[in-house]
């Protein structure tokens, strides 16, 4: 039963991903990404970590993708022609990606990768928010604090970057119009 759901979610996710990178309209691309992200959240539920699914929806879909949509809207981007790729890159990039996919696929399917068995706390099947909370504030307290600082930095940085000067001048970055 779960297998079926897995396949459903997987297929939709893959299709949505493909749509992200192929459609011309950026708005369509963003919406496809939203669909993909929702599938990923569903997969989290399948993996019996509903907390992650919730986090995913809230943050990724709710905040990040909305931000994307805001950006897409603000910047007046026209439809782009798919065929206009970077000059000369296509013939190297596609084989590289395919090769990468195949190599890593081989590694995953038939590679003799050993996975270290964890000796941490045993997971609690089912509801384990308490576990996460406990870990987050004891074992991983340092990364937690760091990430919060990071968020602050990102916040401030984003604001600073886009801030216009009060007098109407350009923000404090160098003009790059001049030829070197």
């Amino acid at each position, binding site marked *: 039963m779960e297998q079926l759901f897995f396949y459903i979610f997987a297929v939709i996710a893959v299709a949505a991903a493909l749509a992200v990178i192929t459609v011309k309209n950026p708005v369509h691309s963003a919406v496809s990404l939203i669909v993909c992200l929702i599938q990923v959240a569903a997969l989290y539920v399948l993996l019996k970590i509903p907390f992650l699914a919730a986090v995913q929806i809230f943050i990724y879909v709710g905040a990040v993708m909305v931000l994307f949509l805001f950006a897409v809207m603000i910047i007046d981007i026209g439809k782009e022609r798919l065929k206009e790729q970077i000059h000369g890159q296509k013939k190297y990039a596609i084989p590289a990606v395919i090769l990468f996919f195949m190599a890593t696929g081989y*590694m995953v399917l038939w590679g003799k990768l050993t996975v270290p068995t964890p000796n941490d706390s045993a997971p609690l099947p089912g509801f384990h928010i308490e576990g996460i909370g406990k870990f987050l504030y004891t074992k991983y307290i340092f990364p937690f604090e760091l990430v919060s600082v990071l968020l602050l930095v990102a916040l401030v940085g984003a604001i600073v970057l886009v801030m216009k000067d009060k007098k109407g001048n350009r923000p404090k970055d160098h003009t790059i119009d001049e030829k070197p």
Partner: protein
Amino acid sequence: MTEAVWLIPILPLFGAIINGLAGNRIGKKAVGFIGCTAVGLSHLILISTFFHLSTLPHLNRSITVAGFEWFASGYFRIDFSLLIDPLSILIGLVVTGVGFLIHIYSLGYMHADKAYWRYFSYLNLFIFFMLLLVLSADYIVMYLGWEGVGLCSYLLIGFWYEKKTASDAGKKAFIVNRVGDAGFILGLFLLFWSLSELGVYSLKFQDVFENAPRLDPARLTWITLLLFAGAMGKSAQFPLHVWLPDAMEGPTPVSALIHAATMVTAGVYMVARSSVLFTLAPISGEIVASIGILTAFFAATIALVQNDIKRVLAYSTISQLGYMFAAVGIGAYSAGIFHLISHAFIKGLLFLGAGSVIHALSGDQDMRNMGGLSRHMKITSVTFIIGAIALAGIPPTSGFWSKDEILWELFQNGHYIIAILGLLTVFLTAFYLFKLVFMVFLGKPAPDRQIDRPIDESPRIMTIPLIALAVLALGGGVIGISFFGGESFLHVYLSPVFEPGSLALPKTHGTTAFVMMAVSVTLGLLGIFLAALFYLEPLRSIAPKFLNPGEIAKRFNGIYQLLCNKYYVDEFYAAAIVRPVKRFCQICLSFDLFVIDGVVNGAGWLTRLVAWLSHQFDSYLVDGAVNSLASVVNIGSRVWGRIQTGYLQNYALVFILGILFIIGGVMLVI
């Protein structure tokens, strides 16, 4: 007493050194004083040594005064020691005595010369070497003196070295002497070698003469011939006579001392000293005598046609030396020594007289410009004529006694050919001597003589030695007169030296002696008479036509030319030896220049080549290395810089490629 003997050679050496080093600063008077007293004192010491020697028993008169060891090698040891015996004392007395007189004469003759001090230094040096030669006790020291007198002869002949003919003559003398000396030293080597085979490692006279009878006669013949070769060079016998006439370029007192009285007699002395060896090798004795008499005749013929006073006397010296060699060659050693002594007096006198004439005529030596000088120079002409009479062999002069002794000995011992040649030479000698006398001193003055200043007699300092020598020339023969039934003083005196070697000559002079005397005197007078006919004015005009010298010269032109050109001996040497040697020297010189220049230029060229190569190396390799490094970096950066395209997605592609590499690596490992 014996220690004072060392002063005999040392005093002239000191004189030479002092005059040589300080001569030009101490003034002419001091120079002359030092020079003359050095020789004079040596003479006095010799006289006292002579008396001392006479006190010793007759047969034992030989003292060896030991000096210091010169060098030693193995068994061979050479000491510097002197031998005092009758022969060496006698010759030493002659050398210092005549030398002293000539020194006095030189005070006057060389008075105006600017190198006065050099002259006296050389003259004293010569006396030193000559005494060393005469007083030595072994062959090596004698050879040292031998070479030394050769050196001094060169120095004195080329005294006026600015004159090319003089320096050439000096060179010629030295080189011809050297040829003879080569023979001499070879003879010494052979002698030493032969003696060493007998176990005797010494060249002292004593040792040599004691052991000589043990040597093989053939070997001895070679030795003596080689020694005689040296004597031929030193005493100007044919064919090594060519230097003596040219040696007249030197000052006249030098000619008197060296080339008449002393140096040229060194050869005779050496043969006389080696009497033991020559007696043991009779063949070489014959050869010595033959060469001697041939030279005597040959030189006399050349003297007939000479026009230079000094040349006539030079050839006369060669001729008389031939007589001496003829004597010692056949074994009549004391006769030869007697002639040596009397010739020293006579020739010394003649040369000094010639010098007086030349001095008075301010350097003119051509006899054809002279004549009638007896009016102006009484003492010179009288003494000269006495000397000429003595040399021509007219009694009672010393020349007569000594020459006659030789002729008698020759005849007595069966050497008739040599004796006849000797008589002929007597005739020729008288002729050319009196030709000189008549042309120079008697008769009328030459018509084309420029009279730029009055001709005066030479100063007293020059005429006193002339008088002294004239007295000796007249009376010196006393020591050699063999009184009837006995032997001469000289012979007796020298007998301890020559007794072991000399022939057992019958000493009694019988009627043959008187016949010889008469013959030689007649020939001498004939020669004088003929010369008078040719050259003396009153007789000349009444002489028959065929006896005119000009006519004879025209009639026998071939012979005349031959004699004038001295039998072309000099020309022969020039063609056969001198020119090839010069050509060889030229070849050596050009080869040397070529090689040296080639080497130097080649070295320079090589250096430039190396410099150029190194420059090329530097500019291409070194600069090339630096430049290529720079261009490698440049090209590399240009090539690798293309990675930075500026396109973000290119960089992302590189990420993926890198990941691919890592995955590939992991796949290989796992």
